[in-house]
């Protein structure tokens, strides 16, 4: 059986040589272990550099808005959902983008791996659900399942729902997963405890905005954090400003977030920023029965209403 990497290269070469697309957006191998980089293959030769492994964390849909050329994208379940989002939000045309669906068995949480093996890793070998980390004088084996990102462990759509072709056969979807078990526990606590929890969560934030910049949903020309008249939040390291930033960032993703985890993977400080977006994702699903990016036809929940929408909290 051919590997995902081989299938992706094959498809990319075919699309490029047939002139179907101008560029294939995928991943290339990282210059250091446990990383990959988004890669734009424009020729058949460059397509040879495309790869697929368990470190393709960045969401490639992020690179689509305002693109002019015809582009093929290798897309995990979540990436494909974000491409659908972009199409719905008129950031790219359906006929301009060729979705190479890559059914996904989850991506590895870099921080989690480094927590388990803090020595300098020189090489990573992946086979049969095992990651073997090799250093100058050590070799450590980890179960991939143990170091998956939390969003991948609870992923509801590992197979792309909208695609032009699939690189490999579909993988079984996870069953019996409660995506929000931890949130329910958290919400059962007192408001003071929740406040303390979220303050603690973002206390290390350095305001690099990597979470925003890695997010495919954040394509505004001018982000609210950069607005000056009025200035919505200060730029110093201040708890109220940091929290305001995270709340507004999350709210802007309401009804659009696919929980792809790019924000969390991009955060250099290891902040669990998904805790904010997940709160909204959960509500959107429970209140309006909507999951982002599953179909090109469904209307996003904040662009529609029902006369009988819940409103118990309104006097």
């Amino acid at each position, binding site marked *: 059986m051919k590997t995902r990497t081989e299938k992706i290269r094959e498809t990319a070469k075919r699309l490029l040589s047939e002139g179907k697309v101008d560029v294939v957006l995928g991943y290339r191998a990282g210059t250091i272990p446990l990383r990959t980089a988004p890669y734009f293959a424009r020729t058949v030769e460059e397509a040879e550099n495309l790869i697929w492994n368990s470190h393709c964390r960045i969401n490639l849909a992020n690179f689509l808005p305002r693109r002019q050329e015809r582009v093929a994208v290798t897309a995990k379940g979540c990436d494909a959902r974000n491409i659908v989002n972009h199409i719905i939000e008129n950031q790219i045309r359906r006929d301009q983008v060729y979705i190479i669906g890559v059914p996904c068995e989850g991506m590895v949480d870099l921080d989690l791996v480094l927590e388990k093996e803090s020595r300098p890793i020189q090489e990573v070998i992946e086979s049969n659900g095992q990651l073997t980390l090799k250093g100058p004088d050590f070799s450590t084996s980890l179960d991939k399942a143990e170091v998956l990102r939390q969003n991948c462990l609870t992923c509801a759509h590992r197979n792309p729902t909208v695609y032009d072709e699939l690189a490999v056969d579909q993988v079984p979807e996870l069953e019996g997963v409660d995506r929000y078990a931890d949130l329910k526990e*958290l*919400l059962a606590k007192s*408001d*003071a*405890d*929740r*406040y*303390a*929890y*979220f*303050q603690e969560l973002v206390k290390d934030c350095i305001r690099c905005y990597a979470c925003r910049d890695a997010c495919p949903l954040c394509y505004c020309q001018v982000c*609210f954090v950069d607005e000056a008249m*009025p200035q*919505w*939040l*200060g730029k*110093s*390291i*201040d708890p*109220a*400003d940091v*929290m*305001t930033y995270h*709340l*507004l960032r*999350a*709210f802007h993703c*309401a*009804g659009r977030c696919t929980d792809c985890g790019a924000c969390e993977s991009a955060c250099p400080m290891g902040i669990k920023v998904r805790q*904010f977006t997940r*709160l*909204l994702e959960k*509500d*959107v699903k429970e*209140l*309006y029965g909507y999951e982002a990016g599953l179909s090109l036809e469904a209307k996003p*929940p*904040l*662009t529609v*209403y029902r*006369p009988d*929408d*819940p*409103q118990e*909290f*309104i*006097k």
Partner: protein
Amino acid sequence: MTEEQKKTEEFEPKIIAFLCNWCSYGGADLAGVSRLQYPPNIRVIRIPCTGRMSPKFILQAFRRGADGVWVSGCHPGDCHYIAGNLYARRKFTLLNNLLHSVGLEPGRLHFSWVSSAEGEKFATVAKEVIAAVKAAGPNSRFVKSRIEVA
């Protein structure tokens, strides 16, 4: 009277009310014209429609030290722009849940539908809002205080 009650008694909260131009602002006006009494803790900001409300406004009000925020607009079906308040309702639902989930105390954030004919309701809701915010006490969450850095 306990110490706690005393504090609440003396505390005069600042409450920012975002009122829709066509209904709740008219309701406030009618309450005034009708000489209906309610405590003077409310600072009104007129907005064209609750559909114009951005979560930024609410967070900014708290950030700048508001003890409570109240957003009020037309009853569903009565929107001057047909459905502005119905779209807004979904945003308010999500925002209300989000802010409470991250630790906003109960009683700080209020939403209501008050028509321009409901001066009475406006005064009643105003009293309710003020009482709730008073009960919650001075706000310290999501408030920006003087910057504490080296």
